[in-house]
């Protein structure tokens, strides 16, 4: 018999956990005590939201399960945003929350909150551990559920007296998961795959619409093979950025509300959509009635509930993207499709690309344009860095101008759109990939939501870089106010802000500022070269907008601004 908290450390080890993020408190003190002797990095963040986003960033950058820990009550409720964020973007995560001792559960005890109930709608699964002997099986199941099928966050709510109980655990013989209702489908239906191959071979104007599921499935190579072999242009969602190299001739970048004109035109005019690892989110499809009106749709997804959720599908395939793509390529090769078929279509797509490039604006007043900063950042890092983003205009400029080359190197809060995500996520990503430069492309508003994690970066020596595109506005909301609310800037002008350079320095990090375009490159070079956490305050053109843009509820081909012919 061993103390349950110590057993948890053995289970972490068994599950390959290298790092956990969290903040201690009464109910998790046994766990923290055990962490002191455990063979893993225990990162104390300054806020639980920082911990959960860091675990998320770690998971997205590495493909492993991210782990975060919080105490009962306020610690647990502070995790909620991050759990919901991970749920929306299908991020594998195990969140461990302390709970009050079993005898007082349900009595409004000190720091009691119904964490199980509060998080129920935003978890893949959750457990309240009531029997200490069940703990090993539950914890192994939590990791198994988090990383398999459609990944997601799993919550384990752990009463303090469970953590100190004595239990049996043999690390060489861990308990098997007991999940009779859980059998994710990996292999796609062969007949459906044959039909999809036939449709692809017959199409004259095909498109690939790929997303987060490809990255999760580690199927980028297969997708590239399909696109190259069958000559099909590729557009990705925000969450799919990097699954296909965006500097490749077949790439059309991102589609959707702030996608490229050419991606949206191609989607609207194609005759076949091969949709894989995507969930037809409204930001990507625009008004569904007018989405790809003439196209046959093939949809591959590991989650059957995503198929035909928002839109009717012609050839549904439930299965793992990697498995399905492999067998699809095999089937397609048998059909020997002729590359000639797509020539006129490829020419049309190329014409759109030439006619409607993303705007590269030069400001008449000589101020810094956001795309200039992002392009310089790309040049200085040769596009090899991991980029995380905050939410808002900064995120969309990053999506548009950062040509992502590799999977797991563009990390953004897509589904929930959580301001304050990017910086802690960058911290987690840097711990997953210490070999790569990690930059949070930030907004001034978002950064202020989790800037306290500068202390964590400094204290653990995590040399994350933050590039604030500082417009002293809640810019994305301001842009909507400019366009749809007669420029009535209600609560979006945030001129009162800290001196970000001094803020960074106050924490012991480095701070730099650029106010003119000719200062941008030097600031980037110095900040990125240092091995300390560094913040860059880029004072950009305040009312720069994100173009092009599809007004909410419109067809994706009805774009405003940016690169009109």
């Amino acid at each position, binding site marked *: 018999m061993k103390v349950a908290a110590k057993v948890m450390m053995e289970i972490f080890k068994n599950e390959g956990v290298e790092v956990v993020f969290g903040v201690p408190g009464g109910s998790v003190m046994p766990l923290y005590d055990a962490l002191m002797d455990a063979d893993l990095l225990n990162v104390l963040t300054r806020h639980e939201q920082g911990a959960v986003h860091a675990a998320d960033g770690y998971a997205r950058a590495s493909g492993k399960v991210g782990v975060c820990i919080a105490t009962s009550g306020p610690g647990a409720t502070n995790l909620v945003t991050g759990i919901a964020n991970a749920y929306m973007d299908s991020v594998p995560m195990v969140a461990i929350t302390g709970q009050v001792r079993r005898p007082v559960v349900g009595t409004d005890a000190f720091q009691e909150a119904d964490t199980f109930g509060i998080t*129920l709608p935003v978890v893949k*699964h*959750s457990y309240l551990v009531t029997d200490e002997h069940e703990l090993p099986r539950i914890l192994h199941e939590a990791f198994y559920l988090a990383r398999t099928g459609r990944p997601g966050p799993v919550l384990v709510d752990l009463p303090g007296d469970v953590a100190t109980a004595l239990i049996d655990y043999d690390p060489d013989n861990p308990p098997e998961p007991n*999940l*009779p*209702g859980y059998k994710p489908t990996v292999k796609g239906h062969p007949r459906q795959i044959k039909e999809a191959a036939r449709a692809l071979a017959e199409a004259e104007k095909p498109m690939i619409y790929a997303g987060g599921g490809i990255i999760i499935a580690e199927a980028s190579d297969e997708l590239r093979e399909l696109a190259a072999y069958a000559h099909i242009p590729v557009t990705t969602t925000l969450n799919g950025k990097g699954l296909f190299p965006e500097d490749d001739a077949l790439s059309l970048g991102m589609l959707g509300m702030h996608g490229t004109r050419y991606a949206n035109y191609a989607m609207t005019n194609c005759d076949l959509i091969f949709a894989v690892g995507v969930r037809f989110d409204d930001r990507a499809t625009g008004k569904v009635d007018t989405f790809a009106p003439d196209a046959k749709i093939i949809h591959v997804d590991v989650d059957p509930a995503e198929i035909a959720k928002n839109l009717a599908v012609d050839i549904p395939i439930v299965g793992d993207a990697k498995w399905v793509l492999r067998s699809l390529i095999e089937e397609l090769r048998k059909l020997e499709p002729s590359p000639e078929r797509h020539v006129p279509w490829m020419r049309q797509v190329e014409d759109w690309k030439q006619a409607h490039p993303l705007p590269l604006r030069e400001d008449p007043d000589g101020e810094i344009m956001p795309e200039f900063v992002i392009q310089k950042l790309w040049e200085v890092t040769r596009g090899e860095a991991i980029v995380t983003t905050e939410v808002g205009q900064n995120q969309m400029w990053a999506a548009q101008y950062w040509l992502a080359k590799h999977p797991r190197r563009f990390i953004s809060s897509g589904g929930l759109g959580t301001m304050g995500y990017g910086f802690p996520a960058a911290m987690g990503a840097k711990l997953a990939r210490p070999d790569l430069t990690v930059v949070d492309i930030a907004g001034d508003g978002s950064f202020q939501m989790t800037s306290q994690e500068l202390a964590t970066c400094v204290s653990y020596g995590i040399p994350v870089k933050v590039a604030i595109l500082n417009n002293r506005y809640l810019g994305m909301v301001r842009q909507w106010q400019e366009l749809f609310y007669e420029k009535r800037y209600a609560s979006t002008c945030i001129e009162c802000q800290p001196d970000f350079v001094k803020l960074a320095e106050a924490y012991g990090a480095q701070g730099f500022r650029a106010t003119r375009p000719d200062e941008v490159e030097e600031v980037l070079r110095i900040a990125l070269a240092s091995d300390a956490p560094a913040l860059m305050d880029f004072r950009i053109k305040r009312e720069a907008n994100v173009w092009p843009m599809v007004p909410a509820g419109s067809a994706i081909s009805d774009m405003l601004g940016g690169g009109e012919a």
Partner: protein
Amino acid sequence: MKHTLSVLVENKPGVLTRISGLFARRGFNIDSLAVGETEDPALSRVTISVDGQDQPIEQVTKQLHKLINVIKITDLDPNSSVTRELVLIKVHATSETRSEIIQVVEIFRAKIIDVSASTLIVEVTGTKDKIEGIISLLRPFGLVEVVRTGKIAISRGRKRT
């Protein structure tokens, strides 16, 4: 169209909350819901009646399937399944109306399980039609209270639901 979903679930804490929460969150209405242990104490059977076009029902079942504790869902075909519901009806009864009520109860093969000076409690089991039938006949006497268990259902023949 009405659907009867027979959902086999693990008998674990929170399962019912997960199911009802899912219905609320996805905007699906539940007409009735009944739950109880099965022949295997580790499993429970939840019988859910829902109203919906075919499209939402497909989403309902797919979303239900995503709940880890849900093992199997059967959308029962009314022609090859039997459904029952138990209802307790407390109805006003005076010396003048008592015998009339007893007649109704007999026609429906229901039972009187409690008698007071001014009320009777009627127990009735049956299909929805039968239950609505007796309720509408008893209503004129003055319904004090109606308590229904919600529908349960089982497939006919050898096959398990």
